[in-house]
């Protein structure tokens, strides 16, 4: 078990290095001048050279990368060209906003998804199964950014129940756990929960159906085990996989929040990325993506390790 964890952690290191290389290269596949957003269009060649040297863009790639990596490991992701503030500070605040939203969405998705999946798997091939499966297939097929707009139309524009955008009254920046703030979170979180809901429902349905069709269940029934006893059995067997899927989905939501945050103007990493892309703030783009990707890698690592701790058979495969 410990060997497995050690192996898994060591295996993660080259992946992290690869991720860092990809993030570094992002700036260099960008067409045009990386300084385009800081230099005035009529800047002299001399000023341009000075700025290049200042940002280190005139050095060889390998040297730039090592310097960049060294600083990144020390917690310095450079300075945002747009705001002149450290990228780390910008990303840090945004990450906590996104994490909050994604965690809530994952919980909603997990609860609903498990429910639909469980019902569908237990009543396999009946109309209940068909309805539950239809809901889950809708969940994975709906363009969630569009769903967000539809929810805004219904609950904000028509009914006026919930605010359409932002993370607090008057565009306030500081999150507080009160109703005035929480109500801003409901629509984006529900919208975001649709995809994990669909995926978890599909996973749980397959798991439950498979467990119920196994011979030992027939054996338990024959021995007179109650419906609740069998339910417990199914939950015990399906839970590790379902939880693992949930963990991975949280990672996908963290990385994929940009569309929903754009729809709802939620001040998280997605909105930050959007700004970085359209204002060509490459250090910010690079830093945000690096942080999100690392989050995802570490989350995968945790899921693997926890899953192995619950069910040691997995480590062998």
């Amino acid at each position, binding site marked *: 078990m410990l060997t497995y964890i050690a192996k898994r952690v060591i295996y993660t290191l080259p992946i992290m290095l690869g991720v860092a290389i990809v993030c570094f290269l992002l700036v260099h596949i960008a067409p045009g001048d990386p300084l385009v957003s800081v230099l005035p269009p009529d800047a002299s060649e001399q000023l341009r050279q000075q700025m290049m040297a200042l940002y280190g863009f005139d050095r060889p790639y390998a040297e730039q990368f090592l310097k960049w990596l060294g600083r990144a490991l020390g917690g310095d992701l450079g300075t945002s060209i747009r705001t002149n503030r450290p990228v780390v500070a910008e990303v840090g605040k945004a990450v906590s906003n996104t994490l909050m939203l994604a965690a809530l969405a994952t919980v909603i998705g997990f609860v609903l998804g498990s429910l639909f999946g469980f019902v569908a798997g237990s009543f396999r091939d009946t109309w209940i199964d068909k309805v539950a499966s239809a809901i889950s297939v809708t969940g994975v097929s*709906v363009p969630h950014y569009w769903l967000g707009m539809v929810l805004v139309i219904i609950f904000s524009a028509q009914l006026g129940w919930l605010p359409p955008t932002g993370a607090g009254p008057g565009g306030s920046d500081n999150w507080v756990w009160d109703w005035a703030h929480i109500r801003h979170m409901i629509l984006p979180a529900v919208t975001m929960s649709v995809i994990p809901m669909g995926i978890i429902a599909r996973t749980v349905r397959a798991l439950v159906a498979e467990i119920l069709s196994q011979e030992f269940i027939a054996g338990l029934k024959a021995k007179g085990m109650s419906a609740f006893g069998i339910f417990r059995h199914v939950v015990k067997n399906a839970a590790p996989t379902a939880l693992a899927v949930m963990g991975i989905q949280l990672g996908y939501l963290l*990385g994929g929040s940009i569309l929903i945050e754009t729809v709802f103007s939620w001040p998280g990493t997605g909105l930050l990325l959007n700004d970085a892309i359209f204002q060509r703030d490459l250090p910010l*783009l690079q830093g945000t993506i690096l942080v999100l*990707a690392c989050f995802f890698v570490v989350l995968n690592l945790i899921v693997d390790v926890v899953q192995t701790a619950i069910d040691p058979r997995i480590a062998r495969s």
Partner: protein
Amino acid sequence: MVQAVAPAMIDDATIERSPGYWSTVWRRFRRDPVAMIALGVIVLLILIAILAPYIAPHDPFRGATLRRLRPPGTPGYLLGTDELGRDMLSRLIYGARLSLFMGVTPVFLALFIGSAIGVTAGYVGGIVNTLLMRTIDIIFAFPSVLLAIALSGAMGAGIVNGLISLTIVFIPPIARIAESVTTSVRSLDYVEAARASGAGALSIVRKHVLGNVLGPIFVYAMSLIAVSMILASGLSFLGLGVRPPEPEWGLMLNTLRTALYTQPMLCALPGIMIFITSISFNLLTDGLRSAMDIKA
């Protein structure tokens, strides 16, 4: 031993033939009403895309400031007009072209490249496998939406950049499936038997490996089309994929956001198209998957 026939003389016509794998799959698929409807919808969408110039009532690019944002049901403009006064129905019809193209092309490109990588890694094994698959793992370490947006964001908006980003996103999952299926097929006795008959690697891959791995890989790729449709439109929605004034559903969704409060129905239309396409591909894949699940 029965020597009733002179074997050299057997006429091909007298040989009893069993239906092949794919015709069995098709027979089973045909019996699935949901999957058949999904297939019908997809064929219809493709026809709409191809025949757009003939069926669209108006020029999708011609607007008029005087008739902006008319609601659906306006005479002459069945589904209303957009923020520049262009006919919605015509734009939705023309939109099928770019939207389908942007959604489907990356998956097919990735299917081609990803299978090549995965089958090579799986069949050759050893150090080649390690090198290829560890590289793939790095790309796979990014959440797909993030990677697509990061790449297009860095490269800038545009159709080609969008296609490249999405293709890169879909290569790793396809390569992984291809690698694992190939690895499991490679160790089967019939591949050993083919090696024992003196065949070279290329001949074995062509005749014995591909026939058995392309099916599962293809089904997996099909399931990615639904995701790809949503992602491709999502890129345009963010302003990263297709650029205005081209009609594309995701881009239309973006430009119509301004009318969210005044013409909500109008605003919802392009999303419905994306949704229909995506769900059809999902249901088609489900049907195909269960049709291919032949126990024998």
